[in-house]
């Protein structure tokens, strides 16, 4: 059996889901028996490569995330929304009932920790925030969702083990669904 290609990426999230992925501990050895990790936040590859399974953490909050996600969808056979931000927007979506101006104003000017100079960063090299944060399934077809903030290591390992052994995971049936 040829090894599958596993890739993970971190969009608008806190990396907590990746921490939870690392919490599968020694079971990572079972994963790498069946898959090569071709991309993750600590693999120094610039462009997202071809992958059999893509684990996408975080929501779409900026133009860069949107571009990245559309690219990942083209390159991946199975795209998994990993964690509540990817599935529901979660905390990253709490700004959605405000305008972008209100958000910037609060974050960079009004907040108690600021120096009140009144300057929001606007360098052209910075990514551009979208008006609204959206979950992955509003932009691309998502094959599996793993909700949870973060999803437990056991749940992530269960999904990976099923897919790497050519089975279809079913979180609801296995009573592994968890929000928050």
């Amino acid at each position, binding site marked *: 059996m040829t090894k599958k290609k596993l890739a993970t990426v971190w969009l608008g999230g806190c990396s907590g889901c990746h921490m939870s992925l690392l919490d599968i501990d020694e079971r990572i050895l079972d994963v790498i028996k069946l898959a090569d990790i071709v991309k993750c936040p600590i693999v120094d590859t610039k462009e997202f490569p071809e992958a059999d399974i893509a684990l996408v953490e975080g929501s779409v909050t900026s133009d860069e995330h949107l571009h990245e996600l559309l690219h990942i969808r083209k390159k991946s056979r199975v795209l998994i929304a990993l964690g509540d931000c990817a599935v*529901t927007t979660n905390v990253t979506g709490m700004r959605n009932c405000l305008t972008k101006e209100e958000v910037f104003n609060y974050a960079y000017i009004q907040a108690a920790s600021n120096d009140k100079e009144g300057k929001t960063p606007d360098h052209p090299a910075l990514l551009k925030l979208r008006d609204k944060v959206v979950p992955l399934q509003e932009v691309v077809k998502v094959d599996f969702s793993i909700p949870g903030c973060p999803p437990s290591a056991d749940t992530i390992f269960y999904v990976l083990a099923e897919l790497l052994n050519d089975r279809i995971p079913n979180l609801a049936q296995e009573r592994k669904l968890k929000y928050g």
Partner: protein
Amino acid sequence: MPKIPVNIDGRALEVDVGRTILDVCRENEIEILTMCHFEGIGDVGACRLCLVEIEGINKLLPACTTKVAANQVIKTQTEKLKKYQKITTELLFAERNHICAVCIADGNCELQDLGYKVGMEHVRFPYLFPKCEVDTSHPWYVMDHNRCIMCVRCVRVCSEVEGAHNWGIMNRGFQVRVISDFNTPWGDSTTCTACSKCVNVCPTGALWSKAAVQGQLVKQPQMVSELVAKRKMNL
């Protein structure tokens, strides 16, 4: 009490006249999903989760407000109903801002439990992200409209059981809101007795006690059902 024959999910049952389909199903261990129903207070059929199919009627009817009739043939577990239950659940999540990770009711929430029961992995509809108020004016309790699903258990328990009529309903559609008195801050209410019945029957983190912190909210909804049952006793 006269008995009538009904057929539920292929089971022939003899049941008392005047009972609701929900009561009959619960007595016979037939699972019906509910959210707005609460033991001890009147039913309004608000959540639409308990819809059942009845032979000869071309629309789905809520089990909580529909009384059994003789020779009814009722189906409660069809694929069609399961499909609608999942849609209804997803719409409940999409309508307001349910952020489990920062919610005081996380892990102790009937809406979360409902999602798990219907197998909701993600919501297929766009989230509305409405701007909702959080009323912290009451000395002990908070009303967070972001987490309200309009089951109106609070409105009913306040009027039917406590008799205070503090809670009411304003507007329609997605602008509908539970209000205190005439849409004034809860803390200014002249009708609220601070009895906490609404807080205890609320299925989500919309109503909570300031004494609790994130994820540690404990509610005692059975307190209200027991109170209603005790009042009915002939002592």
